[in-house]
């Protein structure tokens, strides 16, 4: 294969060309209530070519991997139509490597019958809970082999495994519907989704309790975020803003996101990195052949780095961070997060609550999105905080705010870091990309909570 790709890359006049081929197998199992909805297998073979000429890009994706030479030619031709300036693209060492995937219990070694049996058991636990109307369960596993070669001589084969499980318990009573979900994932280790019986039973019971919970009164509160939701906050509110493709062509945004700017107190450190091992966003090389790194986005409250592709790094005069990722062969790589987390501090959860007279404790992830300056994220569960203690269970709430003010309003960071591996990130039509988020408990002053 190395020779074949090498030949296809030869003899074109472009500043840079890369070819990516991908072979994958995936299994999907979906339950709705007690009904097994779907069990299916997908096999894919496809690839793409990306070419850079005078700062302009051409991209060609295909399923028919014959005649690669023609596809390279088309990509170069398209790039030539776009390119009108000088190409800026950070040089990196042309790496030659083969990366194998390792997992203690690979999904492909688990018979379909056993996968189904496990999900059956989880489904039964949810559905046997009184007042539970129905449940949704989605299981997905995949194995992929990605072959990458570029015109600078890189040739990298990476084998990847991914696994995710999402369960939702839906409770109804008197026309009211409430739900709670649980998302898990790993780089192909089936153990991570076994033995969840207790956790799932508890989740179903919480969904039922929500039926009788009141809704929060909308307004401004001191809120405490649990590690899951704080991780989403790190990802949504700040992580996306650190993606250099939002910034590199935008002078005004560069002024706002200037390295060295103080965003918060010294207690705040936010990190992203594929080189943090064993998590769902971990990898050895990104989709431009750049090694994954561990990058401090905020160190001691100050903006220190941002996430780069080779192009954004070159244009901003910074170093590539190995964050160019593509969902699959149908898409060009763009700047993405990997494993994003807030570093633990020293405050215990109890101390964090103790001086709050009236506040809200928000837990667990339901979703989140951002438009640079503004973010919203939803908690699946919420509690009132009254005189330093957790009080009443509330219906799920949506939190929203301005990133810049919210970061500076973080006034306590807990000592209990946890990573959540069930997330999938969407950007530029490429979703869901495996990522992980994490944080200890954090406290934010003056946060807007949606409600009545």
């Amino acid at each position, binding site marked *: 294969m190395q020779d074949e790709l090498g030949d296809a890359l030869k003899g074109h006049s472009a500043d840079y060309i890369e070819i990516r081929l991908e072979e994958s197998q995936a299994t999907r199992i*979906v339950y709705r209530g007690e009904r*097994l*909805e*779907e*069990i*299916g*297998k*997908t*096999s*894919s*073979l496809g690839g793409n070519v990306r070419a850079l000429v005078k700062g*302009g*890009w*051409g*991209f*060609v*994706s*295909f*399923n*028919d*991997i014959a005649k690669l030479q023609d596809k390279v030619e088309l*990509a170069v031709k*398209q790039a030539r*139509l*776009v390119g009108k300036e000088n190409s800026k693209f950070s040089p990196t060492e042309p790496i030659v490597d083969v990366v194998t995937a390792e997992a203690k219990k690979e999904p492909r070694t688990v018979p379909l019958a056993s996968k189904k049996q496990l999900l059956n058991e989880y489904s039964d636990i949810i559905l046997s809970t009184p007042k539970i*109307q*129905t449940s949704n369960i989605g299981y997905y596993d995949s194995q992929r082999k990605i072959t990458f070669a570029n015109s600078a001589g890189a040739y990298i084969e990476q084998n990847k495994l991914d696994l995710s499980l999402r369960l939702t318990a*839906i409770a*109804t009573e008197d026309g009211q*519907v*409430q739900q709670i979900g649980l998302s898990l994932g790993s780089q192909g280790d089936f153990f991570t989704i076994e033995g969840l019986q207790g956790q799932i039973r508890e989740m179903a019971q919480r969904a039922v309790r929500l039926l009788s919970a009141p809704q929060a009164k*909308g*307004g*401004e509160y001191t809120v405490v975020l649990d590690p899951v939701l704080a991780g989403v906050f790190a990802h949504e509110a700040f992580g996306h803003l650190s993606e250099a493709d939002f910034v590199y*062509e*935008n002078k*005004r*945004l560069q002024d*706002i996101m200037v390295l060295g700017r103080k965003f918060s107190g010294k207690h705040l450190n936010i990190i992203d990195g594929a080189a943090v091992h064993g998590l769902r966003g971990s990898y050895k090389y990104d989709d431009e052949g750049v090694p994954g790194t561990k990058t401090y986005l905020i160190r001691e409250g100050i903006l220190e780095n941002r996430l780069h592709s080779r192009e954004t790094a070159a244009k901003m005069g910074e170093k590539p961070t190995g964050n160019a990722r593509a969902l699959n062969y*149908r898409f060009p790589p763009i700047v993405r997060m990997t494993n994003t987390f807030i570093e633990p501090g020293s405050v215990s959860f109890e101390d964090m609550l103790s001086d709050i007279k009236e506040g809200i404790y928000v837990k667990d992830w*339901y*979703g*989140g*999105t951002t438009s*640079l300056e*503004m973010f*919203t994220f*939803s908690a699946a569960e919420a509690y009132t905080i009254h005189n330093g203690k957790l009080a009443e269970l509330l*219906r*799920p*709430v*949506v939190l*929203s705010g*301005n990133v*810049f003010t919210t970061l500076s309003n973080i006034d306590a960071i807990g000592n209990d870091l946890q990573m959540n591996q069930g997330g999938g990130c969407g950007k530029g039509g490429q979703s869901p990309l495996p990522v992980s988020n994490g944080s200890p408990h954090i406290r934010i002053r*003056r946060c*807007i909570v*949606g*409600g*009545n």
Partner: protein
Amino acid sequence: MEEILSQARKIATQAEVFQVFSKSTPVHFEADRLKQIQTKESTSTALRLIKNGKIGFAQANGSIKPETLVNMATETCQFGAPAKFDFPGSKVYPQIDIFDAQIDEVTIDNMVELGEQLIAAIKQHTPDIMCEASVTKGNASVRIINSEGAKVSYNKSFFDLSLGGVLIQDDDMLFVGESQSSCHPILDFKTVAEEVTRQLELARNNVSISTRPMPVIFTPRGVASALIAPLVTAFNGKVVLDGASPLKNKQGKQVFDEKFSLWDDATLPYQIASCPCDDEGVPSQQTPLVDHGVVSHFLYDLQTAALANTQSTGNGNRQGSLPTPCPSSLIIEEGDVSFWDMVKDIKEGLIIDQLMGAEQGNILNGDFSGNVLLGYKVEGGKITGRVKDTMVSGNVYQLLRQLEAIGRETRWVGGLLRTPCLYCSSLSVATKAG
């Protein structure tokens, strides 16, 4: 395809092969400039089997040996869901125009020029704005054959023009945007440009708004971003069958305002969601969902319809997996009040043009809650400016039970929804104090 079907028939009671070939050419502009030209080709082949009364499914993207695909589907069959339906035989399909050969005549140069003109028009209005745009043309050919004699194929062309702009002043960011889709080529940038400049005009200055319940007008984009997701879920036949839809026992009952009518339509000519049949060969139709406030139908595919003892509405849609009920074009019927008459009626209120994060709430219950990404304040019957740092939350069923008025002009949003403005008397608004 025929080879896959004939091999599958040897081992299965019934079988169906679904194949899509598509080619699209997106031209992307970033930071006001042409950035990337793409060509995307894809082929996928899906096989669905019924064997021993159970459904098996496998899909191949790219080439695959027929026996490999048949084996994959057979493996899943033994654990599959019990099949409650038969594949449809040969049918009479409605004649729906969804292919315009003119698409082939549009050159990449034409598309580049269109994008450049659009960006230039926006920059002429507001020089400091940064624009991203894309111009995409493409076509898809779909074929479905099954063991019961169905043999259907169609070609569809599509074209899309979209623009998103961000205007940054200090730490303040304003997002505007619009898109237009059709099976015809879009040769004129003016419709998109006019909508975006209208947004820029209205958002010229920032104003503050109170924290309290107040009257709200949802623009067509506002309807799409705030209210549609809960309705799509509630009218999904599967959700109804599960008993999780709040509308499950409401068929024939008055649930919405009597001015409110909503239907699903896969038969509109040259709309990107139209087609002669759905992804399992059921002929396309128009399905009333709400008729003057009364819940009339839900959306079904074959399997869900069979489980619910009803007929498929031709809404079986595939996204790399088994068909599932999914709307085609959703249409909300227009009313009789002009947008400006609604505005005139309001002492203090809010116009919601784009709500962010609304779909994250408990949409099964009809709850929505989100940040007003683009919205305007109405004071004394006039639009006074843009509001920021503002959240709204409410419940779709409470809101649509009693509408003050429905707009008399309708507009397409994203090629999938045609709606007028909706005016409601009260919605909870929360804003940052100072």
